[in-house]
């Protein structure tokens, strides 16, 4: 059951947009595809929807091969970035449309529409036209239209990207709650890592048509496989330092102190993540760095470049030699030009492929 995507490839002429993606999505899972625009996430979603056909590969939904089936035969629902509401129909007619097409009797239709609209808090607007609604309300209508026929699979293509930041945060929790209550298998496409982190059961980070890493949000946050993933997740992003392995068991790094005492199990990963020139990156999240007395054991010497107080935390921009990086600390009163020691707890240092 669920969705199986096997070796799906999509080419437009000479351009490969999706490059052999394979993934299994479990029943009821909330699966997020995350990446920059043009990475192939939307195309992958549209192939699952049947709006686009794969050049090769197959797609199964609930055990049925739907690779080339028409969208209407896939039992899916979809929410679009620009909502895709029918501008000439009222909210009621919009939500009722899928039922009407499926020839659901009128009385049932009314009941279901009202029920769904009630759940999404748009019951008062049923007689309005889409242009009379705010962005958030429109998105609710599009969700209601998708949910009204109890689909097995729900596909969402950046549904929140046209909303303002505050509304986005509200809708995020609401959508997540709604689909997990209903237990619908969901594929959600976004370029916003916060959305991905907060909503997903599993995230697939995509780049240039490939799924670079698939895993739970914390897995991806804590253990990014590549520089790209490390850089994409978290704000400010992970600090990455060029490193190499010249002698086995003794990695060298721009800031040598950070890699001196990497734990053994992390050390063991290095061999697998070296690039062709024997390089890798040592990564550490800004919030894991500790500012200590200059010269204390295992710490590196750095100069404060710039300080960004954010209220609860403070972003401290640092320079060690030629290398610039960021530490996120609790509120502090460091000044520009201060010389500090920076300590990277070994258990938080990651070995990352370039």
């Amino acid at each position, binding site marked *: 059951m669920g969705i199986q995507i096997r070796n799906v490839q999509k080419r*437009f*002429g000479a*351009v490969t947009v999706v490059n052999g993606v394979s993934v299994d999505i479990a029943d009821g899972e909330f699966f997020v595809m995350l990446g*920059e625009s*043009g*990475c192939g996430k939307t195309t992958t979603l549209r192939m699952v929807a049947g*709006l686009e*056909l794969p050049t090769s590969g197959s797609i199964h939904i609930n055990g049925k091969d739907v690779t*080339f089936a*028409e969208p209407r035969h896939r039992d899916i629902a979809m929410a679009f970035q620009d909502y895709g509401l029918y501008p000439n129909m009222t909210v009621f007619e919009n939500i009722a449309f899928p039922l009407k097409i499926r020839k659901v009797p009128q009385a049932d239709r009314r009941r279901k529409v009202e029920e769904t609209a009630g759940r999404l808090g748009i019951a008062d607007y049923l007689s309005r036209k889409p242009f009379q609604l705010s962005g958030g309300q429109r998105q609710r209508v599009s969700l209601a239209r998708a949910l009204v026929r109890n689909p097995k699979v729900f596909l969402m293509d950046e549904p929140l990207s046209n909303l303002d930041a505050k509304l986005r945060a509200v809708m995020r929790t609401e959508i997540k709650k709604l689909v997990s209550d209903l237990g619908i298998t969901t594929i959600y496409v976004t370029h916003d890592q916060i959305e991905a982190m907060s909503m997903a059961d599993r995230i697939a980070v995509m780049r240039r048509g490939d799924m670079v890493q698939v895993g739970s949000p914390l897995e991806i946050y804590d253990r990014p496989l590549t520089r790209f993933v490390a850089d994409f997740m978290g704000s400010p992003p992970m600090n990455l330092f060029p490193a190499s392995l010249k002698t086995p068991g003794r990695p060298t790094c721009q800031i040598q102190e950070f890699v001196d005492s990497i734990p053994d199990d992390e050390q063991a990963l290095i061999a697998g993540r070296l690039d062709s020139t024997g390089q890798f990156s040592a990564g550490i999240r800004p919030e894991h760095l500790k500012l200590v007395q200059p010269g204390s054991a295992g710490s590196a010497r750095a100069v404060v470049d710039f300080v960004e107080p954010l209220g609860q935390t403070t972003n401290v921009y640092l320079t060690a030699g030629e290398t610039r990086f960021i530490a996120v600390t609790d509120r502090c009163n460091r000044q520009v030009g201060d010389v500090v020691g920076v300590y990277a707890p070994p258990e938080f240092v990651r070995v990352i492929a370039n």
Partner: protein
Amino acid sequence: MTDSISTAKVGGDKAQRAGERRAGLLLLTPAFVLMNVVGFFPMVYSLYISLTDYNPSHGGIARFVGLGNYAKAFFDLQYWHALGLTFVFVTLSVTSSLILAVLLSLLFNMRYPGFFLLRTIILIPMLITPIAVGIVWRVMMMPDLGVLNYILTVIGLQPQLWTSSSSTALLSIVLVDIWQWTPFMFLIVFAGISSLPKSPFEAAAIDGAGAIRVFFSITLPLLRPVIVIATLLRIVDAFRTYDAAFIMTRGGPDFATDLVSVYLQRVNFRVFDLGYGSALSWITLVILTVIILIFTKLSGFTRIISEKEGR
């Protein structure tokens, strides 16, 4: 790089399904058939006719004469006269109606109460059947009984001979053309003016630019795409002007209004010299195409259109 290409692609043609490449072509078929059967095939056929001496009033047997008709056209002074007249006609009519249209647009852009109604009334001439336009102007331009001369006398001007004199006939049909088609230009230029952004004008006001300065360095450049499109369409249509000239003067007096289309009509349907007429048609078509190409080149028309396509 590849990323941006692929997004553009995805944005453009999303709705492709199995076999839908064929569906797309299938949808194009009716238009394609219409275009080729009624449009291009007769044109190709006309190219063939132009190489013969076909004339149905001479028994209708077509003898192949090679490029003879084209050679004959080269020395046909009457044709070149007609072409020259058409140039003068198109230039005078299009320029004046463009200038008038811009002035009218500026005037009506003041948007005083009642202007909507006046604007609607001004539209009407372009909707009147050109034959009817010819009729009414011919009535009005009668030298001894016409209302135009009456009005001229009343306001103290010399009455004119209008289409009855070879010196004023061309100007008279230019006037009629301006009357009928300035509304077309006005409609388009006005739409352009109304949709101009406000900020450049506010910036100019802050910079202290005067009204004339603003017009030449902001309004006109911003209106350029709209003006180019309107002018191109007008040139194409002015070049084929036939109806009003046919009704009012039939090319006379003394061939003073013998526009290309009037002359071609005479060759083809008075003398039925269809082979020769076809050759002239093709020469005219080539000249018109060259004019359009020069215009599009000079005005940046293709760039304007492709910018619109790319949005």
